[in-house]
């Protein structure tokens, strides 16, 4: 009880400026949120024998606060960020502190005007997507002007002009883009009466970056464009998009002048407990950045959505797929069916089963001989879209069963079969060296089983368990994991987990990775304290990934909103 009082007082002291409800001033409303994360790092020779990841500072902390003021059709906001210093695994470019996002926005006469910072997306993002993924440290916010207009019923136009964020700087390149969308069903009711909803869109983006290369004539203006369609009828939805990018020599593509293109299509069906999704994607040389010399996750103009399932369970999440912007082709098929309650397979509460298969491989590439210097630079390679590439990048076949057994107990059982090309996804090896030396390709094949159970102990008391087993002869070898979480709604949450890398081929690396956490929640505020080991891995969101180094220490996180 005394501990609880101390915790509450500590939280109130920390959160005093934020604990009030939305503040009213000048007739409008002020909202915001705040997050602070930190970790005290401990030297751990087991996971980091040479100390290469052990930070000089010992303690690293970072945080941010958003403030948004709205008053009728007017709104404005800002975000303050601090990295003192940036935590391990986040991009090193975050150094320092300051206001990184600020904007003013008003809506009037079918116009929506934003000046300052903004996020925006054209279609699926193959031509342009400006967004933030805080967990990855990814933020390519635009700084400039955005205008949205509703020209006529069902006709929408967006225009953007500005530079992208590059940590605490701006990208060297400038973006100018336009997107138009027409909802045919809104304009022609005949379609609507047939049960068809059809939307067409087109987008265009031009990048300008100064060039002063002494060897190469570089295009300072690079354009990309795309067309898309969304057709819906009853339980069916078909999304298709095609994008094209003009010559854009860059560090990503080895400074070749070949144009790029991408195609993505998804068909889905959902009715009477049955859901089916089929997707296909092919991209060829679609890296598009506001700095032709950019790398990793810096200054990407477009977003190439993944066609693989993103896993949240810890062991399969160690081997996530990251979209290969220089070229890939893939398919994804997913089907799920919910057996009805009181049926033979559904039981008293119903049963959900699902199957997902995704596979990604290289695209066909016929490289120009290196001796033909000019053609090699202009074209790089020829690719036939009807030919399959020969290098497997990734596949994932998984089955899931979710079942509620009784009012107190339910479980999820998952099996996965993974193939992961480590040369591509970890080492960043290009297709050409792999085609020349296929025997050097490093892969990881694994079978994974996950059992998750949730048990209601009594009113407001829940026990959740996870048991995971990853079986492989490759990379770091097999691992097993157990997790126990106990939550007392609405305030307390306790968690203990351990991953044991029992199959590591290096006897010194057959390590345990224990982690214990306690979370306290009060209203909109949440405080988390953790202690334990974090093994190296890859953290991905939406096909964009970052490498997480191993670490050991005490970490905390405080979040709140008002």
């Amino acid at each position, binding site marked *: 009880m005394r501990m609880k009082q101390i915790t509450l007082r500590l939280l109130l002291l920390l959160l005093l400026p934020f604990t009030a409800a939305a503040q009213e001033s000048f007739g409008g409303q002020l909202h915001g949120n705040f997050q602070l994360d930190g970790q005290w790092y401990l030297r751990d020779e087991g996971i980091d024998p040479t100390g*290469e990841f052990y930070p000089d500072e010992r303690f690293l902390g970072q945080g941010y606060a958003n403030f948004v003021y709205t008053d009728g059709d007017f709104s404005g906001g800002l975000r303050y960020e601090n990295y003192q210093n940036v935590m391990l695994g986040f991009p090193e470019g975050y150094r320092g502190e300051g206001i990184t996002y600020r904007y003013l926005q008003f809506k009037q006469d079918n116009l929506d005007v934003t000046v300052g910072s903004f996020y925006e997306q054209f279609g699926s993002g193959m031509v342009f997507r400006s967004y933030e993924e805080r967990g990855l440290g990814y933020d390519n916010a635009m700084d400039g002007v955005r205008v949205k207009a509703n020209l006529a019923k069902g006709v929408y136009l967006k225009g953007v002009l500005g530079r992208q964020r590059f940590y605490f*700087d701006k990208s060297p390149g400038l973006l*100018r*883009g336009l997107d138009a969308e027409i909802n045919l069903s809104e304009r022609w009711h005949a379609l609507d009466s047939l049960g068809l909803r059809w939307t067409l869109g087109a987008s265009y983006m031009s990048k300008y970056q100064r060039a002063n*290369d002494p060897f190469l004539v570089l295009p300072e203006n690079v354009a990309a464009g795309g067309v898309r369609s969304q057709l819906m009828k009853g339980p069916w939805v078909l999304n298709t998009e095609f994008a094209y990018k*003009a010559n854009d020599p860059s560090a990503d593509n080895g400074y070749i002048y070949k144009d790029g293109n991408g195609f993505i299509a998804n068909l889905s069906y959902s009715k009477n407990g049955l859901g089916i999704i089929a997707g296909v994607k092919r991209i060829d040389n679609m890296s598009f950045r506001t700095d032709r*010399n950019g790398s*990793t996750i810096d200054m990407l103009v477009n977003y190439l959505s993944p066609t693989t399932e993103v896993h949240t369970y810890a062991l399969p999440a160690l081997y996530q797929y990251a979209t290969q912007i220089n070229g890939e082709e893939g398919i994804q098929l997913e089907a799920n069916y919910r057996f009805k309650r009181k049926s033979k397979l559904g039981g008293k509460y119903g049963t959900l089963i699902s199957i997902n298969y995704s596979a990604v491989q290289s695209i066909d590439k016929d490289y120009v001989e290196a001796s033909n210097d000019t053609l090699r630079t202009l074209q790089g390679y020829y690719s036939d879209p009807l030919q399959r590439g020969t290098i497997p990048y990734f596949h994932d076949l998984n089955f899931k069963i979710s079942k509620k057994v009784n009012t107190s107990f339910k479980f999820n059982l998952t099996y996965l079969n993974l193939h992961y090309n480590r040369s591509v996804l970890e*080492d960043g090896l290009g297709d050409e060296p792999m085609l020349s030396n296929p025997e050097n390709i490093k892969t990881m094949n694994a079978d994974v089983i996950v059992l998750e159970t949730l048990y209601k102990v009594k009113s407001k008391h829940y026990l959740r368990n996870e048991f995971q087993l990853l079986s492989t002869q490759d990379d770091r070898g097999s691992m097993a994991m157990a997790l126990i979480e106990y939550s007392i709604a609405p305030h307390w949450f306790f968690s203990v987990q351990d991953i044991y890398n029992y199959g590591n081929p290096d006897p010194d690396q057959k390590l345990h990775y224990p982690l214990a956490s306690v979370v306290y929640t009060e209203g909109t505020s949440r405080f988390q304290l953790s202690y334990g080991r974090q093994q190296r891995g890859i953290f991905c969101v939406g096909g964009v990934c970052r490498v997480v180094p191993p670490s050991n220490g005490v970490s905390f996180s405080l979040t709140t909103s008002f």
Partner: protein
Amino acid sequence: MKHFLLSLGMFTLLFISPSCDVIDQPFKGNIQDTTSTQQQRNVLIEDFTGHRCKNCPKASKAIEALVDAYGSRIIGLAIHAGPGNFTNTNADYPTDFTTPEGKTIQNFFGTNFLPVGMVNRENWSASGNGHWSPYTNWPTLSSEALDSTLRISLEASATVVNDTILEVTAEGFPQTPLLHDLSIVVLIKESNIVSPQLMDDDTRDSNYVHMNVLRDFVTDTWGTSFGISPMIPGDELSESFTATWNTSWIKANTAAVVYVFNPTNYRILQAIEVPIN
């Protein structure tokens, strides 16, 4: 409504125009200017590298290409510093190329990935990353730096006495008024060192030739004072330095690099490379 559509039409044109450059001939012609005998501004490229960094040989090649184009006006310096999984030694990569000074510079300027570099340390700021550049951008940055005004010219000589002591003398001649202090750094680099290197196709080249390897600093990492503001054309600055010579270095493959910089923003105003006699 008419005005509204007109405005939107103009707005569309604003965003659409200038659009796209299509390039048919990607290469420029010969670019080296050999007509000038006056000293011009040179470029020091600090190339942060590691023998277990597979993309690092590409950075070294980028420097070679610039030296081929611009001759001695480009001074490469390979600093083996960065994450241990790129720079540490093991049975396959036994040579320790790291130096304490290299590590100090890498820590101060704040990067943790390779390959990456600085071109005359332009655009440094405590919270920014403008001073870092990938090797693919070095041609552009070098070209711009080479075209910029020379603010101080340098002359230097380096001699090993009795195979034990290295003596270096350096002189500076301001070419424009200088309203900030100057610091000077002298260091030794060595080329043609044969030692294994991880290559970009994930193979190990046991006969890789390492070039421009930072061996040691004659001065402190951050140099010593060379000039006090103000300085004007006609002033003459000079300093002498001595250091212990490491006999394992092959003299014919070594060179002394001398550079002067503004200690408030670390910008390198001039760098020269002289042979060690």
